[in-house]
């Protein structure tokens, strides 16, 4: 019996592994999530079924009630939450996981009180589980508050955070050591450790900029993984152990990757300070622009129905026409409809874009002139601007004051989403600001058009 259950648990672990594996590639991600979920379901069932070493009176009612309650809350809240608020949600969930770890370790610790001799290894593990769980708990909650803008970086500050944190950390470790070495002492010492841990969770997150919260959450997630693993040791359950470790490990590397993605080191994220500015949204004057990574851009296009490419002088400068054609072809091969919107004055001479695109052997039938383009754009998912500026400047439509007011432009804001590739925020020929860049529908993809495009092509290929 138990042997089979053990096998079942093994199966669950394998499901976790496969799940994670699949979660890391767009084509299989959804499946991966289901795998993991299945594994979890299996593990839970087995946990209910497995015969306990020392009998025990099961209390199935309590458990089932709790599980039911949890499931309902989980489902509902996840349905309710807005797409944009997802990360916050994740962070809360993670916190709860941590809390769960705390709860059970507390019970364990109290149990130890009643035993005459406490196995040292088990004791220390439990204490660590509690510690880690606690940090994950309060940390995640604060992360959530920050993400949700409920707590403002500038409002909530602590002096010399690094010092404070180190001190707290030291205190906690000391506490754990003390507790394990003289388990005879009254239980509340354990709770003191717990208390400090909870505080530490807060002080750990406080100094980190709101924009860096995703990284923090990922880190805390790894922590709660570890907590799970530790608990696994306590209950010597391989599922918990391996599952926890997997999360711990992958969570850690994921955190690192996230930092790399916004080219910073994990360390300078944690000691915080200059969080924010360099990432996500960048401020220029009062308005802010939002950048997008090539791979996100690739997904966006790769999974869209229709894309319109808007070439401009920048494409000419970086001689990116062949790459543009590449992108067109690979998108088409994914069933995306791709066309080019040619503005009559794009470039620096009449027909500039025509010459270049013809050179890249782009079919004439894919070229839309101003009028057709503006009709097509309304039903376009993604409009990709390759080094164009003036010809897509909404000011020509909206801003009576603008020197180009009245000039017909490609109204790409009709598209669901716009991406602008250029090297900087510099202006174009007409030398005027372009509100498009700051529009919330728009994402900036900085860099030389040729490079950016070839990266993009590679990424789209990866979508598989």
């Amino acid at each position: 019996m138990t042997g089979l259950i053990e096998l079942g648990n093994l199966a669950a672990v394998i499901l976790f592994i496969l799940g994670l594996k699949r979660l890391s590639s767009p084509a299989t991600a959804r499946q991966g999530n289901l795998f993991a979920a299945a594994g979890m379901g299996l593990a839970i069932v087995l946990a209910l079924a497995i015969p306990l070493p020392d009998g025990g009176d099961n209390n199935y009612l309590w458990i089932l009630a709790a599980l039911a309650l949890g499931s309902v809350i989980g489902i509902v809240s996840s349905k309710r939450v807005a797409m944009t608020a997802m990360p916050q949600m994740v962070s809360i969930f993670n916190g709860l996981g941590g809390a769960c770890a705390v709860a059970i370790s507390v019970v364990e610790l109290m149990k130890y009180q009643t035993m005459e001799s406490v196995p040292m290894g088990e004791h220390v593990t439990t204490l660590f589980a509690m510690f880690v769980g606690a940090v994950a708990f309060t940390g995640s909650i604060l992360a959530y508050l920050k993400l949700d803008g409920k707590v403002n970086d500038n409002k909530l500050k602590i002096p010399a955070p690094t010092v404070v944190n180190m001190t707290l950390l030291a205190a906690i470790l000391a506490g754990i050591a003390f507790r394990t070495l003289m388990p005879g002492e009254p239980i509340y010492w354990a709770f003191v450790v717990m208390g400090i841990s909870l505080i530490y969770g807060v002080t750990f997150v406080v100094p980190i900029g709101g924009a860096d919260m995703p990284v923090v959450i990922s880190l805390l997630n790894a922590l709660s993984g570890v907590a799970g693993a530790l608990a696994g040791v306590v209950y010597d359950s391989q599922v918990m152990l391996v599952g926890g470790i997997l999360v711990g490990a992958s969570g850690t590397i994921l955190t690192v990757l996230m930092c790399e993605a916004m080219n910073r080191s994990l360390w300078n994220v944690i000691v915080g300070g200059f969080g924010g500015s360099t990432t996500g949204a960048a401020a220029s004057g009062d308005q802010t622009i939002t950048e997008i990574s090539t791979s996100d851009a690739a997904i966006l296009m790769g999974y869209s129905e229709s894309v319109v490419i808007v070439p401009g002088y920048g494409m000419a400068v970086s001689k990116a026409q062949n790459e543009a054609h590449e992108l067109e072809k690979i998108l088409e091969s994914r069933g995306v409809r791709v066309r080019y919107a040619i503005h009559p004055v794009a470039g620096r001479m009449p027909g500039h874009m025509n010459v270049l695109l013809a050179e890249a052997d782009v079919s004439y039938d894919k070229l839309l002139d101003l009028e057709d383009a503006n009709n097509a754009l309304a039903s376009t998912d993604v409009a990709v601007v390759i080094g164009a500026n003036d010809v897509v400047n909404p000011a020509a439509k909206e801003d009576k004051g603008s020197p180009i007011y009245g000039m017909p432009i490609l109204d790409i804001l009709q598209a669901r989403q716009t991406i602008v590739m250029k090297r900087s925020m510099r202006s174009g020929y007409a030398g005027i600001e372009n509100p498009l860049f700051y529009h919330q529908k728009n994402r900036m993809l900085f860099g030389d058009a040729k490079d950016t495009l070839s990266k993009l092509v590679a990424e789209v290929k990866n979508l598989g």
Partner: protein
Amino acid sequence: MDFLAEFLQANMTMIYVLILAIYLGLELISKVPTVLHTPLMSGSNAISGVVVIGAIILVRSVESNDYLALSLGFVGCTLGMINVVGGHAVTNRMLEMFKKRK
């Protein structure tokens, strides 16, 4: 020191499991594209909900009159379950966009 050596020898296999699992953890997602960072995080977060197993075993093993433990365990189960179920559900929603068009 000596204690450590003892320990090592005792749990060597366990340690292998750890090491292998860790390496696997790293290996598995080493090539994840940026777009998947958040879903992946959310997904693995859901997995980190395994602690619920602990909570379950705990509740099962305590006496049915030890209400403190029971209620704590109950809370544990609930929270853990939220983490698990909610986590997977949210992840699933995040991944909607990857539905293959045919």
